[in-house]
Every structure is written in C-alpha cells, then in structure tokens.
C-alpha cells in the first residue's frame, strides 16, 4: 500500500514539535535543577513536597526564635549571677558591720546602694522587653523604693512601722525599741509585706506567669522568670529592713536582730536564686538540644525536598544531547523528503 504524501511530510513534523517541547523543558530543568513543572511531575506527591517545605519553614522559624530566647535566657542568667554576688557581698558587709562602730550607718548606706543595684538588674530590658516582668513585658517590674513622690512600697513599710511602734522610722525615739519588739515586728507585720499577694500590690508590677516558647505542638518551655519569685522578695526584704526600719538610731540589741534577720533572708535569697538559675539553665539546655535536633532534621528535609523535586543534572544534559541529535536528524530528514519527489526526476 502506498503512503500518502501528506503523512510522509507530517511524520517528522510531529516528532519535531515534541522534541522542541522536551528541549525547552530540559533547558529549564538544567538551569533550575528542578523539574520543569514540579507539581505535574509529582502529582499526588505534591502534597508531600508542600508538607516537607512547611515542616522545614516551621523548624527554621523555631530555630530563629530559639536563638532569641537563648539570648534572653543568657541575659537573665548573667543578671541572676550578679544578684547572687550582690547578696553575698551584702551579707559580708552586714556581718562585718554588726558589732562595729558606725555599723548602722555603714549597713544603711550599703543597703541603699544594693537596692539601687537590685532595681537596675531586675528592671533590665532587652529588645524593648523587661526581662524580669514575666508576661507583663511592657512595665518595669520594680518601682524605685526611695522615689519621690512616695512609692507604694515605701508607704506600705512606713504604715506598718507606724502601726507597730507608734512612730516613724526617722523618730529619735526608735532607740527605745527593744530587741524582742523588733524581732516580733520583723517576723510579723513586716514579713507580711512580702507575702506574694502584698508584694504584687506594692513592690512589683511583674506578672506571676512566665513567658514560654513553643518548640513544637504541645511542647512549651519557660523562657523567663519574674520578679515575684521568693528569691527576689526575700532579698528585697533583707535590703528594706536594713535600710528602712529605723537603722541609724536603733539600740545595739535591736540592730543586731535586724542584721541577723537580714543575713538569714539574704542567704535564703541567694539559695533561691541558684534554684531559679538551674531551672532556667534546664530550659536553655532543652532549647539548645532541640535546635540541634531541628538542624539535623532540616538537613534531612532539604535532601528529601531535592530528591522529590530535583533532577539529575547529568541525566538532563544527556537528555539535551539526545534531543538535539534527534532534532538535527528530523531536520535533515525533512529536507531530504522534500527533495524526494518524482517531479524532480521526470
């Protein structure tokens, strides 16, 4: 059977179209390293590609976020170390001044300085956030005790002193307060000022709730502490009693009660600060371990995505060579077929 002239001419034309289309795709693949139409190539597995990319994006964002959290935790840890040192120094000063001449003036001055340092440390900010404020990140957790107008903390202490002894701390008559009276005050009404509820209404504006970071679904870690922790209340109590319970004009016995109580509170505070530090330290460890895990996971995900969407460059360049050869052959065949006509030979 003879073949029609039309199909003879069209046969190479069809294959040329197909080869050209494949050549364009192959060139795209070679330059991007991915399939020309990734979704078409993957079909139902496009869902996997999107999921993998999503998991990778999420973990990249967790890694970035963990970096910020680590910085904050680092700053918190440094602040806590400084505070512990401050507590130790203060205890040392107290013990040294307990029985010395002018001891009352020395410790009062030391308490004032330490209070200022404590305020500066607890009110530290990072990236616009008060680190020790719990979730109340926009307000300084600790008000200045000696501020003018009168801070609510100072007025609470003043009121308590007045109620207990019927005089103010500046009264010359404070020398008449006995050691046992002072002991009762310090362990009684004065202590009450530093219970969590009283503390939060007078001394601190921090929230009890700590900030958390979400590492994964249902996996959150605390990344802050707050100024309402016992450690800070106890240390502030030690400083306040030394600074503002008539120190300067007390009799020696009452003064010794104050110093002894302050030393006890100070050391309790530094022990508690250690606890806070170790709690935050474990958060730091959890975060850095998790980040390492995510980084490993990301490396694997990147490989998987490439395996799914990528093309083998050697295979593509071989394919381009084959297609080019095929196209050249088709062109030359077309030219020959066109010449192959009985008309030319009659």
């Amino acid at each position, binding site marked *: 059977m003879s073949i029609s002239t*039309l199909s003879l001419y069209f046969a190479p034309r069809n294959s040329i179209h197909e080869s050209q289309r494949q050549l364009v795709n192959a060139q795209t693949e070679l330059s991007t390293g991915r399939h020309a139409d990734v979704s078409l190539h993957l079909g139902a597995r496009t869902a996997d590609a999107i999921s993998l990319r999503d998991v990778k994006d999420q973990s990249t964002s967790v890694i970035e976020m963990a970096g910020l959290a680590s910085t904050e935790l680092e700053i918190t840890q440094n602040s806590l170390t400084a505070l512990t040192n401050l507590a130790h120094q203060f205890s040392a000063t107290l013990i040294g001044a307990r029985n010395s001449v002018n001891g009352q003036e020395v410790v009062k001055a030391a308490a004032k300085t330490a209070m200022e340092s404590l305020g500066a440390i607890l009110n530290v900010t990072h990236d616009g956030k008060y680190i020790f404020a719990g979730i109340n990140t926009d307000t300084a957790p600790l008000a200045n005790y000696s501020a003018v107008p009168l801070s609510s903390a100072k007025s609470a202490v003043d009121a308590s002193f007045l109620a207990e002894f019927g005089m103010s701390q500046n009264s010359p008559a404070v020398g008449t307060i006995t050691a046992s009276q002072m002991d009762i005050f310090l362990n009684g009404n004065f202590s009450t000022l530093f219970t969590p509820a009283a503390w939060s209404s007078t001394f601190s504006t921090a929230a009890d709730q700590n900030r958390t970071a979400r590492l994964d679904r249902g996996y959150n870690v605390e990344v802050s502490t707050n100024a309402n922790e016992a450690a800070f209340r106890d240390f502030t109590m030690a400083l306040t009693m030394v600074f503002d319970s008539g120190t300067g004009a007390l009799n020696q016995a009452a003064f010794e009660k104050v110093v002894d109580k302050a030393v006890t509170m100070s050391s309790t505070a530094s022990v508690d600060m250690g606890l806070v530090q170790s709690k935050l330290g474990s958060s730091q460890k959890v975060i850095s371990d998790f980040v390492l895990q995510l980084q490993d996971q990301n490396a694997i995900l990147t490989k998987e995505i490439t395996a799914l969407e990528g093309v083998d460059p050697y295979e593509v360049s071989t394919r381009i060579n084959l297609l080019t050869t095929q196209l050249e052959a088709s062109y030359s065949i077309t030219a020959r077929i066109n010449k192959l006509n009985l008309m030319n030979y009659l």
Partner: protein
Amino acid sequence: MAALSTALNIARSSLATVSGQTAVASRNIANVNNTDYTRKSAAIISLSGGSTAISGYNRAADKLLLDKLLTATANSAASDSILSGLQRLSETVGDPSASSSPAGMLGKFQTSLQTYEQNPSDQTLAQNAVRVAGDLVRSLNAATNTIQSVRQQADSNMSESVDRINTLLQQFKVANDAVVRGDGSSAELSENLDSRDRIIKLLSEELGIRSVTGANNDIALYTDSGVTLFEKVPRTVSMPATPSMVPGVSGNAVYIDGVDVTSPTSSMATRSGNLFGLAKLRDDITVVYQSQIDEMARGLIEAFAESDQSAVPTLADATGIFGYSGSPAVPATGTAIAGLAGGIRLSASVDPAQGGDMTRLRDGGINGVVYNYNPTGATGFSNRLTTLIDGLDTDRPFDTTTQLRGLSSLKSFGTASTGWLEAARQQATSASDLQTTMKSRSVDALQRLNGVNIDDEMTVMLQLERSYQASARIISTVDKMLESLLNAAG
C-alpha cells in the same frame, strides 16, 4: 473494413477513458493537502466489442478505520478539555517552592504566628501575622474566583459546543440528503460522501458518535450512549447557559431529543467528546475542588473561633479573626458550606486597615470582653497564640464529600487537597498524551489508506500519457490504412 472501424471505436473509447482517468488523477493531486479528501480511482469496464468505459469512481474509504478515528477524536477532545481546565485550576497551587497555594499560605501563616508567639509584645510581628492572615484569606477568595471562572468558562463552552453540534447536524442533513438522493454524477456523489464524513469527524470532537449506514447510503447518527442525534432529520440539542456560576449552584444539563446526556446520574450520559469533558469539569472536578477549598475556610474559621472566658462560661463559641457572612456563629463542624471560601474575611476588629486592633490576634476578645483570654492586657501573653498554632495541627472532622480524609488536621487537609488536584492533573496529562497519540495514529492509518501520494499519481499520469499516445497512434495508423484502401479503390 468492419474490423478497422471497430479498432477505431475501441481507440476512441480508450481516449475517453484515459482523459477521465487523467481528470481523477489531477483531482487527487489537487487535494493532496486536504486531510478530509479520500483518494478516488476510476473503475474501468470492458464493453462488448472490446471498447472500455468508466463505470464509476471508487473511494478508498474504510468504515472501520473511520470509526476508530471518531472514537479517538472524541476521547482526545474529552481529555483535552479536562486537562485545560485542570491547568487553570492548578494556578491556585503554583510551584511548591512559592507557597502560593492556600495550603502553602497556611504554613506561612503558622510560621508568622510562631514568630509573633515568641515575642507577643512586638507590634511589628503582630502586624506581620495579621498581614499574612489577610494574604491567606485572599488566596482562598482568589481560589474560589478561579474555580468559578473555570466553571463559568466550561458552561459557556458547553453552550457553544451545543450550538456547534446543532449547526453541524443541519449541514449533515444537507450532505446526507444529497447522498441519499444520489444527486449529480458519480464523481459528485463521492465528493458528497467526503463532505458527510468530514462533518461526522467534526461532530466527534464535540461528543462520542456512532454512525449506522442504512439503505441508499443513508446514515443515522447516535451518541456513544445510544441517544439518537440524526435519523433522517437532526434532533434538537439544547442547553440553556447559566449567566453566572456561583458555588453550590449546578449548571444545566445538555438534552438531546429530550434525553439528559451530561448528568453523571443519567443512564444515557455521553462518555467522550468535548461536551463530556466540559461537563465533568463543570459538574464534578470544580465542584469537588471548591468543596475542599470551602472546607479549608471552614476549618480555619473553626480553628480560630474564641470561647467564653468567664469562670462559668455561658455564651456560645464565636468566630475569631476569620469571619464570614454568618459570623459570629461558628459553622457546624464537618459540614461543607458551598462558597464559604469566597466569603471568608479578616474580622474588621483585628485588621488595622479597617481600624481594628491587631493585638486581638494575641488576646482574643473580638466578640467582646468576655471572650478576652488576656484580661490584664499583659503584653507578653502568648498562651492564646500557642493554642491557635497548635489548633492548625489538631485533627478535626471534615466533610467527606470533599473526597479527602474525614478526620485530619487543617494543614494536612490543605496539602491533601493540593495533592488531589495535582494527581488529577497528572492523570489528565498522561490521558491526554495517550489520547492524542491514539488520535494521530488513527489519522495516520486513515491517511495511509485514503490519502493521495503524488508519486503514485505522477506514475499513473505517465502511464495514462503513454496509453493516450498509443491510442492516438492506433487512430492515425487505422486512418492511414483506410486512406491506402481508399486510394487503391479510387
């Protein structure tokens, strides 16, 4: 003497036959580039007395090959129209690396919430999260628009296809009548047969066709499902176009001779051709895909709904940052609402562009203070955000009419929807490639049979030329012989 005049007669009839054959050859050559032309050849008979004549013209036609071509054409047209619809639908997905699909946007949104959650006091991060939420809403709206415009396009293409079928059937009647009456010479008859076959081929692009040849070469046409399209007279094909396709409203079915041929439920539905592909696109693929996008929107509204924060909650849950026309009521879970993705919006009380307060994303309280999760207004409050982020990964029920899993997380549902669409596109692409190949094979097979080969025709012409020369030589020889005879007699 009698023998000489017989020879002259035979030579004369041979000249007539040869010129007839030359006419056929030149007609063949003229149509060498016409794919609808079937090669003709003259049938020669010997008459009593030895002269020859042309008895008729043969068409190199093959009913079997033509039927195969019709089936291949209809299948190829169906898969092409499905594929082109799916190509447009896959615009809503884009490349996985661009995360431009609703599923990808959902992932981006979760990442932005995650960043905000870590630093909830940062207004820039809040703004970013709200902006991405807006992008997500827009991607759902845009997907709905794309899907509905594909449906609309399919609907108007169906209407055009119906018009075309009606026109072709009218033309078919003219061609068929001419054939049945046997109008004109036998040469013209074969042209009429050609043009009738051409119309059948065109019809098979629109829908699957079966042709049955009856007495007098009369052809009756049926759809592949058996509905009569043409029997002596064309049957009416009708479909009122739907001026504006909206989600949840189904398009009109195509009726041929009063029988529904496009509804999947109809027992007489056509199974191939452009019309079938368009109907599948309009009534099946886009409807299912829309329901998936709608369910994503509903899942999103559900995941971000807020609940009464009073010590003893009394109020019902209300829609949060994502609202819709039914806000603040939260849509019933696991039940698709047609067109919800087109109506989902960012709540005005969160969107800073509409005077809203973006920290409501962090604190809740879109529906009043009782819904506020952070009544003290702490700037470092992140619990609500954590719940929202986790909510995207929590399994929740979805409508099973979406053809996806009934219980999955919103994010898996979104990616599964993308997978569903791309799987359909991949399948349609390979089906279309296959059908195109089948069609071009059938065209090729038919062409080999009934196409014109110039070399062949040229060779025939050479033969005819020789045969003409020989007959002419006979005439002149007989003439000379008669002349000699006359001279001798004279």
